[in-house]
């Protein structure tokens, strides 16, 4: 078992070593009975908007990195497949 807080603020990198930024939130799908994790919100862009600040210019956040792409969680890093 792991906790939500242990995933937040970790560095997200691809298998190829490309840094995607820090994981600032976890996206999930809420139904009547369950709450399934679907992705990682990553990177600096969109961070301000995420926390409710008015958007500056035309910077939009990335779509979240899908949970299926996660390869391993080790140390303070989350490694994901190169799909982008």
């Amino acid at each position, binding site marked *: 078992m792991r906790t939500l*807080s242990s995933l937040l603020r970790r560095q997200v990198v691809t298998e190829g070593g490309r840094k995607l930024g820090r994981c600032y939130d976890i996206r999930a799908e809420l139904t009547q009975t369950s709450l399934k994790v679907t992705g990682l919100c990553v990177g600096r862009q969109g961070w301000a908007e995420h*926390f*409710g*600040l*008015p958007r500056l210019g035309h910077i939009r956040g990335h779509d979240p990195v899908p949970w299926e792409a996660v390869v391993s969680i080790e140390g303070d890093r989350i490694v994901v497949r190169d799909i982008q």
Partner: protein
Amino acid sequence: MNKIFGVALGILAAIGGFVDIGDLVFNVAAGATFGYQLLWVVVIGVVGIITYSEMCGRVSAVSQKAVFDAVRERVGFKAGLITLIAAEIVNAMTLTAEVGGVAICLQLLSGLPYRVLIVLAAIVLGIVVWVVNFDWIERIFGYGGLCLLVFAVAAVKLHPDWGAVGHGFVPHVDTGNKLLYAYFAVGLLGAAMTPYEVYFYSSGAVEEGWTVKDLGLNRLNAIVGYGLGGFLSFALMIVGGALFLGKGIEPETLGSIAMGAQVPLGEIGLILALVGILFAVAGASIDTLFSGAYDLAQFCGYEWGRHKSPAGAPRFTLTWIVLLILAMLAVMTGVDAVKLTEFAVIFSVVALPLTYLPILLVANDKAYMKEYANGRLANTLGIFYFVIILIVALTAIPLMILTNLGQA
């Protein structure tokens, strides 16, 4: 008709409840040091507290969140915890200063021994909070605080140079001692925008179950209550400038502030001023007492409420009892209430950004706020004030040290 009457009574109570020991000390001292030059800073401070109170009230009405709920949700657990600790320290200092102020006023009125009055003040405050319904507390202390209007009469009676007063409302810096000027500006902003006021205001809004129907009332409360409260601040500064500046007096005691009404109006002025200060600082003691308990309860998530019976929110009740006892003991050490007030106001400024940022963020969150999210005016003012608060927070302590608490 009845409703308008109710609103008017509420506003009267808000005016009387606006001034606390920080406003008394900084406004009179600023007047005694710089005359009317800093009146414009009070205006900025009052518009600031109006802006953020309105935002807090709106957030509470729409999302049922009080300020410290928002703090923890938005800035995260760690920064939230640090904000909580800072807020509690500042709050305890403010509470101590206010309780000390109550004891000093009681002493000036009765002549009884100081230490006896400290204990008496704490016991009476405790019993009042325990027994009396909060609606009545608000009215009693708010109306009692209206005696402070004697300072408005005193200001007129002292025949200030109204041209200079008018000029004071225009932002300007006209002094050789810019550091001292800046110190007083920071103190006046801090005194007007004290964080405990927004904790208190927003918690009340959640408790009283405000909904979007109450948004108009919220705006009216914030603008008129704080706006007219600011009027008292002007009066205090004008008295400081007209009476003390020309003579080279630096008022260092609460009794000196009361003399500001005594000189132009005689014995009746003195008594009204002392009674007004007594009710104002006693009311503020109760507000800070509750604020300290609100912050902790909201951070930890347990039951709270000034409208609940003491047994209805046990940990909340225990917290304010402990805070009151600690403040009483702190006053007993003989600490100078006026000096402590200056420290409390300056340190409170440091804690302001982490209090006001989450409010600004939640007020912009469309997921909760929907069509009631900040509009252009609220955001322009909100961001403008946030920048001011940041600057003030960074400079407050250096200024305090460089000017040796406004002495040099």
